[in-house]
């Protein structure tokens, strides 16, 4: 009774997605869209949560196969909590990213999921790490990922400036997500944002950028907010 033809690479529910993270002085902003698809033509969830809190000040966003990504983040959450208790202090963002990388690399044949890990720690402050599907770990000031990211590389490279304020970063993140959702068919829904700083996760904003509603950011308009 298989009505949906399965995507040849990802079986089951897939997070064809747009994810990004940006660092500003004092914190990071991590964001994603909210669409989960099956077989490239059926939206199985319009409001799925791709931002996972793996520790108090460390978030991960997922892309790829939903089952694999959820399993990896759950294993990472456990290992990170254990590590944090052993060290008797909050874990470094690098530790979280390394755990994800170990899992992705050691099981690269069986798993298909990529992540962006971002957070704040006392040693190095705000950091953004990109853990790709094969297990590559790279630290960057900002990063975009997922299938929708291909449409916004130009925008991101043009608009990003080092040393932006928090509000500027927020606008940058929301606009980038909106533009990607406008062009990529497997990204859509609303934009979820999480802002992490020394004071903890400030606000989890569900910036309502669903393109079919009144506050509509068209893909071809450079948002002026």
């Amino acid at each position: 009774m298989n009505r949906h033809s399965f995507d040849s690479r990802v079986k089951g529910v897939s997070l064809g997605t747009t994810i990004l993270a940006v660092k500003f002085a004092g914190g990071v902003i991590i964001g994603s869209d909210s669409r989960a698809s099956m077989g490239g033509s059926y939206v199985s969830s319009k409001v799925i949560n791709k931002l996972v809190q793996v520790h108090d000040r460390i978030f991960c966003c997922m892309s790829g196969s939903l089952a694999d990504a959820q399993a990896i983040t759950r294993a990472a959450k456990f290992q990170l909590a254990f590590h944090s208790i052993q060290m008797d202090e909050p874990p470094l963002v690098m530790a979280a990213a390394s755990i994800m990388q170990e899992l992705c690399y050691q099981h690269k044949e069986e798993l298909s999921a990529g992540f962006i890990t971002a957070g704040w720690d006392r040693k190095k402050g705000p950091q953004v790490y990109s853990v790709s599907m094969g297990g590559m770990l790279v630290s960057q000031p900002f990063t975009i990922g997922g299938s929708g990211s291909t449409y916004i590389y130009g925008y991101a490279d043009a608009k990003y400036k080092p040393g932006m304020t928090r509000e500027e970063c927020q606008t940058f993140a929301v606009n980038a997500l909106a533009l990607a959702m406008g062009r990529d068919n497997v990204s859509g829904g609303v934009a979820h944002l999480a802002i992490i700083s020394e004071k903890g996760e400030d606000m989890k904003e569900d910036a309502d950028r669903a393109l079919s509603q009144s506050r509509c950011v068209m893909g071809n308009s450079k948002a002026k907010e």
Partner: protein
Amino acid sequence: MALSCVLEPALSGFNFENSTRNIVLENGSEEGKIKAPKPMKTGTTIAGVVYKDGVVLGADTRATSDEVVADKMCAKIHYIAPNIYCCGAGTAADTEKTTEMLSSNLTIFSMNSGRNPRVVMAVNILQDMLFRYRGMIGAHLILGGVDCTGSHLYTVGPYGSMDKVPYLAMGSGNLPAMGILEDRFKANMDLEEAKSLVSDAIHAGIMSDLGSGNNIDLCVITKEGVDYIRPHKESPFNYKRQAKYKYKPGTTPVLTKTVTQVELELLDETVQMMETAGSS
């Protein structure tokens, strides 16, 4: 972590032993060495909705084996815990056994810890198990329940993905059922509204999908208890037998009757005393 007797101990990281086994089986069956049996699929419409006081789950009752209806009154809403029920779509045996195993694990946990299980615990156990089997267990499940943290509705896919949702439909009839749910779902509905919404969603699945049919079962879970309504609505197309197929004694006429005596010869007789060991 302290209750180790509940499940096999969780190893950190992943265990992919079953992946190699699955690859060998798949390749073997292509060459004709191992013929995988065709499993009975439920070809189903199941739905769930969170309302003001709890959760309403619904399901049709048809189980199909290719084109034949194998079971007209199949129960697709499975008991997990006194406050948690689960609808299953996909391969009938997989949903049955998975939910039975989950139910046993949660019962042992309740006895050991003295606490009622939470819906999120059931979801975690299911996720671990289904992910470990890499999609080979064809169980698409909707879990609903009410615990101390509130009313929850979760979906767990066969590959181990999960999602927490306010309303949901699954199975081969999920597209028409989702249409009804998307149109009429509101947050904090009252009981009658929720029951009629789920019932109409299942009905849409039954009408538009060949694999779903017969009656509609509902299960209402609240803090006070569970109301398992089976059937909630019976199919108006129940076939009533036109005649009886039992024959009265004397229907077949006896033409002749011959009695043959069988001669038995007693050859050997032994008697063995039984040891009735009683205190005398």
